[in-house]
């Protein structure tokens, strides 16, 4: 898609870059301050998952427009180990990395649309969208 921004995620400093760029895009797409914060927080969660579980990957940011509605799309993808039990990973409080286990289910709650695609040994792609009110 034209106008996409790709942020490589290789170390934790990139998490901050990704969420700042996400916030900028959300602001440019007319999302409110609160919505910008929800998007930035969701990006932070999925980008951190890349650093913790896959070590490297990328976050792709794109502006959305649908029948006059504007929003943003965030794609976080990696070629890491994949998630053995996606249903469990989407459950609050479940974590294999001794964290809070709020990352994926939390990011889902922050966004309007959320899709998790994962294959063992191949990697994980999280696609999420937030629309302006």
């Amino acid at each position, binding site marked *: 898609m034209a106008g996409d921004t790709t942020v490589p995620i290789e170390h934790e400093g990139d998490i901050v870059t990704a969420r700042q760029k996400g916030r900028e895009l959300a602001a440019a797409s007319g999302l409110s301050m*609160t919505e*910008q914060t929800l998007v930035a927080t969701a990006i932070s969660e999925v980008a951190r998952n890349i650093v913790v579980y896959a070590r490297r990957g990328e976050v792709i940011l794109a502006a959305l427009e649908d029948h006059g509605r504007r929003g943003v799309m965030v794609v976080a993808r990696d070629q890491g180990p994949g998630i053995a039990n996606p249903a469990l990973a989407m459950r609050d409080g479940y974590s294999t990395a001794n964290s809070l286990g*709020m990352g994926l289910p939390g990011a889902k*709650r922050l966004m309007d649309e959320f899709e998790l695609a994962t294959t063992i040994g191949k990697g994980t792609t999280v696609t999420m969208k937030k629309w302006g009110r």
Partner: protein
Amino acid sequence: MAVPIMKQGDVLIASMQEALTDRALVQLRDELSDRVGRFRSRAVIIDVTALDVLDSFATRTIRSIAYTTQLRGARTVVVGIQPEVAFAMVQLGLKLDGVSTALDLEEGLLLVNEGAPGDRRDGR
């Protein structure tokens, strides 16, 4: 980037800056815990006014910093959680169980000085 820690009487004030790395958060925990002992501080205020995102990692770290300094004997208050950040934390399901919060630095100082000699609220 290290977090500046200010000493005001027997209160330590750590002002978190924009876009903290995970490493800086961990460093802050160790530094505060050490200084509480060195300066015999009675209270610690963690000011997050400048933070525009508190994700699950940052929340967990702030909580562990607060628990650590509380166990070291310093009353610990987190101040300055912005309204949008608070809303995002609620949506995420994040809590700061057992940690006091206050609106801003001023309210935080009032809170930690409550009951202390010269309490500003005395005689109001």
